[in-house]
């Protein structure tokens, strides 16, 4: 991540001063913050789905299975599309932005990485172990 982070709605993007341009900038800014929020909340949701669940999945643990499947679905349906919006809006911003400690871009990237790490490293891995155990034990 660079030291000068372009962000929609910041800096020199409003060069024309026309209302249409201002509207585009405002819309872009809203999409950007919405995508950051979705990334952060999805990370929290995926983490929540991991709480209290046993490492070993066993037959009959329907709720536990569902939580892991839901986490993967959230990753595919919410996190990755939100990251696409996040990336597009950030890349399409023309201006530069003075960054506070917790800038939205950092939250967005952290949300993405936490989501992916938990989805693969916890939910995916326990499902993988279960599949591998079933393969060993039943097939």
């Amino acid at each position: 991540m660079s030291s000068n982070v372009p962000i929609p709605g910041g800096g020199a993007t409003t060069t024309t001063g026309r209302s249409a341009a201002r509207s585009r900038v405002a819309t872009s800014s809203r999409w950007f913050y919405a995508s950051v929020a979705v990334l952060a909340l999805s990370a929290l949701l995926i983490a929540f789905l991991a709480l209290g669940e046993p490492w070993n999945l066993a037959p009959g643990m329907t709720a536990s299975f569902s939580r892991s499947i839901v986490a993967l679905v959230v990753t595919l349906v919410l996190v990755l599309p939100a990251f696409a919006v996040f990336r597009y809006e950030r890349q399409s911003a023309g201006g530069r932005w003075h960054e506070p400690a917790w800038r939205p871009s950092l939250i967005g990237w952290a949300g993405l990485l936490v989501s992916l790490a938990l989805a693969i490293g916890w939910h995916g891995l326990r499902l993988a172990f279960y599949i591998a155990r079933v393969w060993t034990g039943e097939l």
Partner: protein
Amino acid sequence: MRRLLLAALAGLALLPAGVALAQTPELPGDCVVDENAAVQVLLLIDQSGSLARTDPDDQRLTGARAVVRSYASLADRVSQVEIQVAGFGQDYRPGEWMVLDQDTLATALERVDAVGSVEDQLHTDYVYAMEGAAGAFAGSDASCQILFWFTDGEHDLDEDYLADGLERNYFPELVTQANVTEAEALMPGLICDAGGYADQLGAAGVSAQIMLLGTESQLDDASRRVLQGMGGDPSLQCGPGNGSFQSVDDASRLPFIMACASQVGAYQLTDAAPDVNGNLMVNEAVVDAGPAPYQLATEVRLITRGSAGSPPDLAATTLPDPSTTSDADSGMNVVLARPVGAPFSVEMSGVSEACVWVAAQAATPVVQSSAPSLYQDEPAEFLVVADGPHGRLEGEALGRIQVDSENGQVSAPDGTGWSIRVSALPIAGSFDVRVEMVSGPGLTQSVTQTFPLNEQINAPAIVTQPGPVSGEGLGPFAVDLEVDPRDGGELCLTPPGAAMTAANGEVINATAGFAGADCLQMEAGPVQTVTIDLTLDRSGFAHQVLEIPTRSVPATSPDRAEEGLLAIDFEVTPRANPALVAVIVVGLMLLMLALLWAILYGVNRLIGRIPDPRRNRVRYAEFAVEVSPTEYGELDMSLAEAPVDSQFRLPRRTPSRLDAGSFRMQRMVSPIPWLPPYARIGMGTDVIGAHQGPGLPGRTLVTEGSYRGRARDALGPLVVIGLSQTQLERLAEGTSQKAHGVLLFDIRTARGADASRIAAEIIDDSLGLIAAEFTAMNMVADMERTGEA
């Protein structure tokens, strides 16, 4: 973890020595519903001619049907239900006893219709009615006897129908208009006096449920004494007073009242009532507000009434397969739903009045010892848990249950159960723990559990049960035990193993041992940690408490031994194929990375799109440039022919390419996602010079072939000229050349002649800067060639 502990402790419990009979809500007359109860019901229906006036729509039939259905629902909870449907008026018209259950219900309802629809009797004679009822119950050995008596009025030998006289067996003469008053006056004495029919019924254990269509105030004193006295008012001195009495003056309410009055084996939720909009909601909270926790409820009966012709509707329910019996004439609807121990709701609409009953099953206490072995003269702790009809009860529900034991102090429930502490176990071979569990009124269960006691022989003993153990594959799995050697001796596993059932139903045999041996020799000393190895004969998914009996022999008394039980909460899974795990995880990672790459690459392609000149009103114009070298070795560029506004053209554009005459802009997106996209700009010539015009961050450059620009350079203003290598060589020889150029220009900034003038100015300014860049580049090239600093 708590469940695991419970399961482990459950393994320690021995089979109960005896379970007391469940007590559930009572039948009329304090008769308890249980599996040994034999119930006899005499449904006695008034057949007097006055019913044509008081109940013209035969609502009593609907009510009587509800009564029969209510008792039929008892059939699967008692040993037998028998019913007889009889009529009375001036005579008693007996029916026949028949077994009542769901199979015979239809036949019983037909008898109700046959008897209840008759209204041809001219008089209403209570004496004959009670004489017949007493005769019907004579010799009965049923444990529960119920007389459900419906009448629409008082005892009346109607003078208008006496004609030549009416023969009555309790009056010595024919009853005529002259002596009818005298005959009627005998009635209360014959029924209520000592030895009368009320006493005979009471002595036989019969409880009377009396339903009057009308009001008590309309009755004469004699009839009121009989009906209300037998109906439970002891002050009227008519029978044992073990019955109930209810009256209703509106015939349309009769089915509802009779249905409510005949509910047995259940308790009523008195707070359940419809709201002002006629909606009635019964859920677990409503049931929980009753005398017993909702987890014990097995059936909810919603008897509701709307209005004549419009019975309430079952709007919604979360319970499966509710049964609904609705009667449009009386506007009554009876819904039976069966809770399953989880939160639920049943919603009715169009309700004007309702009575809600709940059938519940008493929780059964299960007593477990918290230690694997019990010893005489030592303190002990027992755990009591409650099993309901839908499974084990936990949490707040336990707070509603009262547990008592004569054997020790019972603690408050801790969310899983109660503990009973015994300060010192008796010196005996066994110890009986008796527990009484009261779940609500009439919901009492008691159990006596016998635990064997060991003599204190100081053999090695397992101090506490091991914690949960989990593993994969076949083992061996190490289980650490805390063992107190006491006086030393031998601790054996007998047998050294146990079986568990896998999730697919297969049996997995676990073999346990102390480093391969069944027994462990121990010297006297402090508590030691001993490891047991568990080995399985097959792999599978299983989670169970392995119960392995133990036998300890003290070194000091080898001829004596004590038994114990080792309980291991053991969870095992098949061994995972690590290669397969790796393949799946890598596949998942690759999938995610591929999607991420696709997103980044796709976004770069979107970002790198060349703006649409049509939308941004960008046009291009081609022009000719006169390029000539000066005497100082510089280049001079001047506009040979300025474009006019009529020559402005719309560039051809796709998101990846823009063509404006000989000018070309190509979008370039790297597959490496962190490299930003750019636009390659060229004229198809060997050398180009370009200047991004005023109004934007200026940029002038001269380069070979093409240069790396930005997609939004396509918005202009941009001046680009192209020169071939031949032209450059001729310029170097001092010969002027004509070059070709292209201007990209936003036509919104000017129109008509202004556009032509501004375009010429932009090109002029840009050519000066480009020429300077050319000159500077040539100077640098000369200096590099000559080595000049």
